[in-house]
């Protein structure tokens, strides 16, 4: 039995008409003599509306109850899609996480899939052409309902593809993966192929095409992910192990609302550096673009997202309360721009080309990894920097 796993995002199932159109798309796919397992997100803005309701009844976050609330969104779209399919003569059933046996850890709002045997799905596929599975959610051994974090439906789809040894196709309102965000740079090119590692860097850098965790799972199990457009037949992009085309730089991504934290003239003490980052990590705060320089004193600089500024400031004040003579600065209004490419590993001259392209842009911080170069620029220079890099690297 050939099985294909498809996932449709929230904008693809935003209303009754779109749900019917997705049903027709599924019916066409069934002509390829395959059975379909379809993962759906909640309709359009449902999740946002539910979160708004939650805020109206309580100003505290109760993770278990929030998961109980939010998971209704996918159950609505899944059942509606199953109805639309049956209406056009396709045998179909919707399954929630409990019925599809998607077992997760008990970390509400950020659970991880532990075990997915898909035995029930396999059984039900014998008597159905398409099974509709609620994305984003799972169930613990104790029968508690969990969610996988925002964008978690991608992860549901890839995990199901692994369990069913199936192809995985992810559909949204974007026709694939682009060299950079087409909304920011309309001339961005669509990539035919992108490697897992590049995609992971891009996802963690803010490209919203795929949930990072889904790419990690695909990489671990060697599942190729096809990303395409729901309502056009335009060829999409493949996320896979190797990139046959081997460009040096595959993509550029931008993350706005960055704050640079600079600590200067601290005493030379490696222990202190460790303490600072440990404290910040324990608060659940993500830091990025770290630079530690010691000459006459110790200078530490890193970036955080702007909305966490007061949170970070509180943590740092606590650690440094007995110290004197150092300076601490928080500079907001920055964007982080990164270029990513698996080819950087084996090519020289990428860095010099990067700096050449940005010679007219003031850079506040630059960091690199094996397949990535990132720079921090003031938001007013963002557009100029993106343009220069897109031209230089032909993105």
């Amino acid at each position, binding site marked *: 039995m050939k099985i294909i796993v498809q996932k449709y995002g929230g904008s693809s199932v935003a209303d009754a008409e779109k749900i019917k159109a997705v049903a027709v798309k599924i019916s066409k796919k069934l002509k390829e003599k395959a059975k379909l397992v379809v993962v759906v997100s909640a309709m359009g803005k449902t999740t946002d509306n539910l979160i708004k309701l939650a805020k109206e009844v309580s100003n*505290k976050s109760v993770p278990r109850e929030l998961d109980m609330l939010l998971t*209704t969104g996918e159950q*609505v779209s899944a059942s509606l899609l199953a109805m639309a399919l049956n209406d056009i003569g396709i045998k179909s059933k919707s399954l929630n996480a409990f019925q599809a046996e998607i077992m997760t850890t008990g970390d509400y709002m950020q659970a991880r899939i532990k075990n997915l045997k898909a035995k029930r799905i396999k059984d039900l596929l014998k008597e159905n052409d398409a099974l509709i599975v609620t994305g984003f959610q799972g169930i613990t051994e104790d029968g508690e309902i969990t969610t996988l974090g925002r964008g978690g439906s991608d992860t549901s789809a890839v995990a199901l593809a692994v369990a069913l040894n199936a192809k995985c196709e992810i559909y949204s309102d974007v026709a694939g993966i682009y060299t950079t965000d087409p909304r920011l740079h309309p001339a961005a090119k669509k990539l035919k192929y992108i490697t897992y590692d590049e995609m992971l860097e891009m996802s963690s850098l803010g490209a919203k095409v795929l949930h990072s965790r889904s790419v990690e799972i695909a990489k671990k199990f060697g599942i190729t992910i096809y990303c395409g457009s729901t309502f056009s037949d335009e060829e999409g992009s493949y996320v896979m192990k190797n990139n046959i085309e081997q460009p040096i730089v595959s993509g550029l991504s931008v993350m706005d609302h960055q704050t640079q934290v600079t600590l200067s003239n601290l005493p030379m003490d490696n222990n202190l550096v460790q303490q600072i980052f440990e404290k910040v990590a324990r608060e659940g705060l993500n830091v990025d673009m770290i630079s530690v320089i010691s000459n006459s004193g110790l200078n530490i600089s890193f970036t955080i997202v702007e909305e966490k500024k007061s949170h970070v400031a509180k943590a740092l004040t606590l650690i440094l309360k007995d110290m004197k003579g150092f300076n601490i600065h928080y500079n907001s209004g920055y964007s982080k721009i990164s270029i990513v490419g698996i080819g950087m590993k084996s090519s020289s001259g990428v860095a010099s080309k990067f700096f050449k392209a940005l010679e007219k842009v003031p850079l506040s911080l630059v960091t690199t990894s094996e397949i990535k170069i990132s720079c921090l620029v003031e938001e007013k220079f963002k557009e100029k920097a993106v343009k220069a890099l897109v031209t230089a690297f032909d993105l």
Partner: protein
Amino acid sequence: MSIIVQKYGGSSVADPEKIKKIAQLISNVKKEGHDVAVVVSAMGKTTDSLIELAKQVSSGPPKREMDMLLSTGERITMSLLCMALNNLGIDSVSLTGSQAGIITNDRHNDARVIEIRPFRVLDELEKGKVVVVGGFQGVSYRRDITTLGRGGSDTTAVALAAGLNAERCEIYSDVDGVYSADPSIIKDAKHLPEISYEQMQEMSEAGAKVLNAQAVQFAKEAQIAIYARSTFQQGRETIVRKFPSGLSKGVKAVVYENDISKIEYFNNDDEKSISLLRFLEQRQIPIKEFNYSKVENGNKISFLVSEKNIYNVEKIESELTAEFGNCLKIEHGFGTVSLIGDGINKDNTILLETLSILQKEKVKIHGVATTSFRISFLLEKALVKNTVLLYHNRWIEEKV
């Protein structure tokens, strides 16, 4: 420790403000030292909007999928209520029908509760938490989500009260109990402070929306008193409990139900009648007032179908016509008006007088059925309300 089960209907939880108020009410009961389990319905018109969505994507939505869809409404309410309780410092946990151990048969859209396995609820109560259960829903042995039909949250509440051996079951809505007729159409309807299980059950089956019929059945079996009260208006209540027969003779209430279809089937072979009934059973269509009679050249069966829990009427009707052809007559647009009372048919006086009232008003009667607690008339839908008024005047208000 005494356990109290409370149920709040859709209008009591219609918006976040009301949910917060209910959280406050629950917190007061909890602070009095009771263990509290709360059953909630979907917020306001949620269920109706979900049904509307289903109609937009499908001409005949499968019953199983309808239940998947509709059961989300209560889940939204129960999680919001727990958040509101948490905000007041009350520890609570929300449970779906399935998590609360509400086991049903597999008759989707109109499932019966067959068993309550309240282990999880008891555990959580023991930990001192308020347990909030999604009403109206259960899980079948196939692990499919089922719903209990309109008003099914009452059933959840009473079944849970029975399963937990609760002290009492309080059903809160926007009405302060049971009346001699629907107060929204009869302005002088009489409030009933007490009513027996049997009478309440007949009332519910005949269309009264205050309490669900299966809920009353459960209460009767478990001998649990139901307190029907208004959520936001304290004062009167109706207690449904075992009531010594003989205290309340005569007509106690006039109830009605709309959207009734009448089905007649003529044939010369009983096998055909049976296959029609089997056809309906396979599609899980409940029928009532079944009647069988010999007529010239064969047999006639007739029965009524209430359309209220059937979400794909058109589809079923076209299948029926295709299968049973022109010997089948389906007529829509009926309603029933029923008189309820203990020993109402001990002699024929009430039946006789009601018939003559209708005759005098030239109301065409399409059918009559009686039990020891009830006399029901099948009428055109348009005549239902006026007939309720006539009967209420005669039997309750006793204005001749």
